[in-house]
């Protein structure tokens, strides 16, 4: 397999990044995942993190070096992630089960399979623009499909954040799995969260992907979306892959031909540590400081 791949995730205007992205590949198969932990629910980032970890781990267990049935794999792995989130919530006594969207894509045998839950999207672009994209499991997508609103109205509709299908929670997710789509040279697959697609049109994405090498295109789209969303903008994340191309600046160009048969390369960011953690000595110092101030100001 030969492809270029690039992933990025930004916090946008939010206090916390609840998006997670990852990809992992063996000699004969590639997995890409994007998960958007749900705002309004506590620990959304945990649900997203568990999801990408579960998918990557399951992929690495079964892609030896390729999956026997990508569609079954995707279905099973997403269900497994759903159970893992619920298990985590139970064992850690979380008051609320965290939720996440997920879109995952497997490439092998020159074909792509994907599955999704919620409103994170997959776009497949060919030489002539958009080939297909996933339909969100959201209220606004239903309204759009029923002809009540247009695609553009979806982006500003008051119910745009309402999704009826997600991983984690008491309701079992309905994982929607695509049929396999054969890939041609230069096809690009983009997986992204609503923070990115909500601020861009399909044509803008197509034009940008055509105009720039993959890494530049993704950064350009992110810049554009972040700017448009402004101060209170959502987290934005994407992982994108162009099939069969080599030697593009910035993105990682991969040829898996020389890879040992049962090895994996994975790119996944760890759960970021909360930056302002307080070390033991800092606690002691703060207390001493306060006691000093009390003594000094009370004249004791």
């Amino acid at each position: 397999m030969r492809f270029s791949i690039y992933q990025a995730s930004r916090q946008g205007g939010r206090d916390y990044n609840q998006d997670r992205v990852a990809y992992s590949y063996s000699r004969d198969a590639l997995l890409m995942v994007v998960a958007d932990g749900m705002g309004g629910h506590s620990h959304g980032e945990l649900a997203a993190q568990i999801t990408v970890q579960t998918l990557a781990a399951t992929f690495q267990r079964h892609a030896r070096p390729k999956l026997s049935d990508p569609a079954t794999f995707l279905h099973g792995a997403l269900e497994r992630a759903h159970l893992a989130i619920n298990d985590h919530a139970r064992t850690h006594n979380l008051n609320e089960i965290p939720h996440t969207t997920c879109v995952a894509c497997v490439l092998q045998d020159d074909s792509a399979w994907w599955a999704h839950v919620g409103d994170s999207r997959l776009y497949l672009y060919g030489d002539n623009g958009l080939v297909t994209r996933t339909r969100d499991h959201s209220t606004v997508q239903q309204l759009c499909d029923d002809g009540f609103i247009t695609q553009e109205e979806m982006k500003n509709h008051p119910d745009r954040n309402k999704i009826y299908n997600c991983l984690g929670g008491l309701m079992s997710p309905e994982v929607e799995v695509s049929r396999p789509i054969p890939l041609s040279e230069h096809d690009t697959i983009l997986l992204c969260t609503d923070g990115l697609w909500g601020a861009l049109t399909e044509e803008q994405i197509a034009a940008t992907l055509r105009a720039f090498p993959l890494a530049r295109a993704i950064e350009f789209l992110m810049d554009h979306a972040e700017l448009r969303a402004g101060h209170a903008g959502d987290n934005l994340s994407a992982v994108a892959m162009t099939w069969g191309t080599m030697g593009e600046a910035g993105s990682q160009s991969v040829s898996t031909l020389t890879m040992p048969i049962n090895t994996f390369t994975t790119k996944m960011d760890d759960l970021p540590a909360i930056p302002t953690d307080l070390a033991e000595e800092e606690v002691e110092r703060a207390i001493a400081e306060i006691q000093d101030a009390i003594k000094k100001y009370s004249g004791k």
Partner: protein
Amino acid sequence: MAAQPNYALPNGYLLMDYRIVRKIGGGGFSLVYLAYDSNDQPVAIKEYLPGSLVKRGENDQVEPLTQENANAFRYGMKCFFEEGRSLARILHPNVVRVENFFRANDTVYMVMRYERGKTLQDHIRAHRGEVREGFIRRVFAELLNGLREVHTQKLLHLDIKPSNIYIRMDGSPVLIDFGAARQTLTLDQPLLAPMYTPGFAAPEQYTDQTMLGPWTDIYSVGASLYSCLAGFAPQAADARLISDKLASARSTWSSEYSESLLGIVDSCLHLNYMERPQSVFALQKALMETPPPLSKKRKIMASLRKTLNREIF
């Protein structure tokens, strides 16, 4: 996130040199106990105990519920320190005094002077709709001395309300509970999201945390003044932003309170912070002016309006 069941330290518990008498208050971040020190003087002890993050485990030690919570717990502790640090530097008769700060049970404690008296909220409840103008002017003018000192220390209270204003036995007010001062520090910490008191929090506390300033506390002072007149809290600022139904003090109590006091209340409650008094000093000066004697007899309409107001709430 709902609070975990966090039980308080038992009555009679010995905490360092202090003997706990009983729990007297607490919110989402902390519990407050009445205790006696080694000289048998009463103190109020505040225990850092964010219920959403920790529980009390073996031997009264405080334990994080999860590993992620451990980090957030430590972060919140930093904010608790900020509160202690700021209060330690304020030595003012109208601001609660911090006497000690220490670590125990894997958490931290702040010891404050215990004030005898009752809260302004108790006073309002006891004199509903009948709080005298002289009392209001005197209490708030004196209280603002304390608030000026707070602002001088570059600290915002952010949770001024009648239940956080204590009236001592001698009638002097004291500002308590600076727990909300941490709000300015928790923007990147969703596990310890800020909490507002509806009716007393300023609109910018709901909308744009970067716009907080002395004017934010001034809104809360205005809301507290308003509740002295009305006997209940004004409409919450977030609701006012959508549909402002707040009856102005000037239009409601013109026969009971002086024009100048009502004007002060209304000016503090402007949704646009630029239109409020811009400093505590300006507000204090206005409050300290002697009002012209109120000679008008209560009119029938005003009396009716007042009765209606009382019936509604």
